[in-house]
């Protein structure tokens, strides 16, 4: 019994990651009918922005004196870093291809995914590169700047694994026999809060209604006076920010991050979005938690190495049985 509840909580924790990332896939699909295959890497970039922030805060001793604020700043940095990455990608990699074939956009997305991974991996190299630029005897940057640039680029990225300082440790609460760590509670709480906020935003605000209008019919939305490009950009901003938050959660929970970390959660979150009904926001949340739970349940019966296979088996079964997903409409007309 105790084991079962702990596995359930484990499933909800993992599901929180999937759900938050899946929302980005589904929102972008909703407004552009495209799969943003770079979304998993936006999640990774968020984790790196968070890692850089918490590392710097810890160096100055701020984390120790203000742990709550430090965590909040880390989440904000991860969210904003990922969001800015997302809107930049949309503007330069997708917008010019809006009228092109779906295949062109797909290739652009895959290219962007590789680009982001390599970029984060090579950041320290760029640091040494630009600090070595010189004209004759004179270097482009003064000595003190060079040290700072090298320091920042090396702290931020690189091919090696980066480590989040273990802020929350393994402490937690105990309910009878069952212990739940604070980091799990934090992750589940943050995921729920942001999903509720997103739901309210999409249902009730002017921006949310405009997003739904754009998702249904861009030409008519433009006739209403909606700046369609701006709404698409805002959609990328929000979806990417949620991925960035998930990235920071991943860092806080698993401690280690690397440039390729976005791949597996990305593709699983995509699975979650499809299972829930891609384009459908509550569907993405539902799909994320279902997938998280399915994975931990599978561990009860199968060796743990099979858990990735379970996710994709679910994807394949779903695509055969109900390609529009659990909450999806019919005929691919699935919209925000």
């Amino acid at each position, binding site marked *: 019994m105790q084991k079962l509840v702990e596995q359930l909580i484990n499933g909800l924790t993992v599901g929180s990651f999937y759900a938050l990332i899946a929302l980005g896939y589904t929102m972008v699909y909703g407004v552009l009918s495209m799969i943003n295959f770079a979304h998993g890497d936006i999640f990774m970039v968020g984790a790196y922005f968070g890692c850089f922030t918490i590392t710097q805060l810890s160096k100055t001793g701020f984390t120790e004196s203000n742990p709550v604020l430090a965590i909040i700043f880390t989440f904000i940095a991860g969210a904003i870093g990922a969001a800015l990455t997302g809107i930049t990608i949309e503007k330069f990699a997708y917008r010019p291809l809006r009228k092109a074939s779906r295949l062109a956009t797909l290739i652009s997305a895959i290219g962007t995914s590789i680009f982001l991974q390599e970029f984060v991996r090579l950041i320290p190299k760029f640091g040494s590169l630009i600090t070595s630029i010189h004209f004759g005897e004179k270097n482009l940057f003064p000595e003190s700047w060079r040290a700072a640039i090298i320091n920042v680029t090396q702290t931020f990225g690189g091919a090696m694994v980066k480590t989040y300082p273990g802020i929350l440790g393994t402490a937690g609460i105990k309910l009878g026999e069952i212990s739940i760590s604070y980091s799990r509670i934090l992750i589940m709480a943050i995921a729920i809060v942001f999903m509720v906020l997103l739901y309210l935003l999409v249902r009730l605000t002017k921006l949310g209604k405009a997003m739904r209008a754009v998702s249904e019919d861009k030409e008519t939305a433009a006739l209403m006076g909606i700046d369609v490009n701006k709404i698409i950009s805002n959609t990328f901003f929000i979806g990417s920010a949620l991925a960035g938050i998930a990235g920071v959660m991943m860092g806080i929970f698993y401690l280690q991050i690397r440039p390729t970390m976005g791949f597996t959660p990305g593709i699983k979150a995509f699975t979650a979005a499809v299972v829930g009904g891609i384009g459908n926001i509550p569907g993405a949340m539902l799909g994320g938690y279902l997938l998280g739970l399915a994975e931990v349940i599978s561990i009860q019966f199968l060796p743990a190495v099979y858990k990735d296979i379970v996710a994709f088996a679910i994807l394949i079964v779903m695509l055969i049985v109900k390609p529009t997903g659990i909450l999806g409409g019919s005929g691919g007309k699935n*919209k925000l």
Partner: protein
Amino acid sequence: MVPLLQVKNIKTYYGNICVLKGITLEVHQGEIVCLIGSNGAGKTTTLKSITGLLHPQEGSITFGGEDITFLEPHHIVEKGISMVPEGRHVFSKLTTLENLEMGAYSRKDISAIQQDIEDVFKLFPRLKERSKQSAGTLSGGEQQMLAIARALMAKPKLLLLDEPSMGLAPILLESIFENVKEINAQGTTVLLVEQNTKLALAIANRGYVLQTGSVSLSGTTKDLRSSEMVQKTYLGIA
């Protein structure tokens, strides 16, 4: 007097196919002007060029004396032109009320919007009963009313209507055209595209006949009704 809308010799293309081969037309403040012509003549393309969904490669469009040829649609709405697109295009997943709110998207006078929603409900009482329903569940006639009401929510100076009669039951036809007359009487200038030539000529002041991307005839509705070409081709009078 300077016309409210002046379209001067516009040529609009889809890819490299020239669809509008130089269209010139004017709409004056307070008028109902109709644009008639058979399927594929370029009526919708003309309206899309005016609203900025398409940009002509040659020619110019001015509204209230200001050049709007290359403005984007969301800026043109702010200038005071709204359009009821062909086939209604209501946002089917949004409620009736939300559709109306989208119509008012570009407005700055937020506090007046509520009152205007009440006003369009007076014009189309059926919509009020359906206000919480998603627009996709409305009947064709109700959707047409909603599309018109939504366009009115922008408080346009000029209302463009693209085939409002399409797919409507005969009884509804009359009432929609009555609505258009009433909207015009309340001060909104109207440019009406119609294939139902008889009804269009009945409510318009002036009209243009479009044939394969060019204006083949224009004049007062009286002139048009007495034209042999119009009678034969569009009114089915042999």
